[in-house]
């Protein structure tokens, strides 16, 4: 049977390998306004395999800002940083932690 070339064509229903249907856990980087022109950056949804405490420490040192980890009942642990650090956090996550850019969402204005 397999001698017929046409029947040996590829299976159109086979997985192509590059499916985007896997559940993507987005990392949300948000900004919130505080009093005056002060702002707060929150990083939500970092994967569990990372040590948030260490990340926060590095972020604080790199960006020269304060920050802390807040535990939320539904959303898990969230990093809070003072000031608008959205782009810097994005840069850090992509370059240092090798996270994909498409999984990171930056919110706010």
């Amino acid at each position, binding site marked *: 049977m397999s001698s017929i070339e046409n029947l040996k064509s590829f299976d159109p229903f086979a997985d192509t390998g590059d499916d985007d249907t896997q559940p993507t856990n987005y990392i*949300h980087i948000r900004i*919130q*306004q505080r*009093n005056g022109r002060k702002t707060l950056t929150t990083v939500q949804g970092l994967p569990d395999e990372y040590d948030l405490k260490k990340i926060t420490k590095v972020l604080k040192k790199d960006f020269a800002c304060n920050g802390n980890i807040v535990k939320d009942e539904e959303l898990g642990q969230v990093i809070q940083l003072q000031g608008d650090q959205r782009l810097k956090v994005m840069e850090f996550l992509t370059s240092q932690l090798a996270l994909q850019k498409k999984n990171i969402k930056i919110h706010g*204005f």
Partner: protein
Amino acid sequence: MADVDEPKVVEDLGLDLSLKKKKKKSKTPDAESTPEPTVDDDEDMLAGLKKKKKKSKDASAKADGVDEVTDAFDDLKLKKKKKKKATVIDDFDAQLEKAGVLDDDNKENSPEAAEIPGETTSIKYEDLLHRFFNILRENNPELAGGSGSKLKVPPPVCQREGNKKTLFANVQEIAAVLQRNPEHIIQYLFAELGTSGSIDGQKRLIMRGRFQPKHIENVLRRYIAEYVTCETCKSMNTELKRESANRLHFIVCKACGSTKSVSSIKTGFQAHVGRRKK
């Protein structure tokens, strides 16, 4: 500020169907203006050479130029002016060449007009194209890439309400243009900006926090990208429908009829800002 931003919004948000048209429009006058003065030369040459091909024509054109050079030299016989004249004539040569190239293009588009030496007054391709588009535009403008389908979203109008609140005056207007429920847009705005707010008596939105029009414009742009434009045809003529069976939101495109499910708006983590509770 708002005035400066307006065209950008329109350009980005609207479909760039008009680009095509602009190109054509800008092209036709160029093409018409440049070949016309050279047509006479061309005809003369045709009369002289008739069936000789492009390259020989160019050469003859150059030869003409050279003749003129010599003529000029004979007339002037001034050594200092020679150089200037020469450069001018070089320019002229370049122009002639250009004209020749353009003519070649013309001929490629309408070979018949060039082939038949008797019918020198035949209609040019550009004219025909122009005519075609004019008629098309008159009869059915949609096919000609009409700019009527372009959506114009007005720029957000923001005022400060007191010290800590922002008044977003034309939410209703923008919602009407985008064919969305204002509630939905407001929900998105609140989620993205991480604030809360209310609607006042004149249906304007009051948000907590200070926001500039450009901030809101950015957010609106993302809203449009996510909840308004059709993924398939990039049209903004869409509708947001909520399927009661599976509680999902769908964008239904009115232009191409495709549907796409969109995620509901999630507020996400809200840090506690302000005075601490005991």
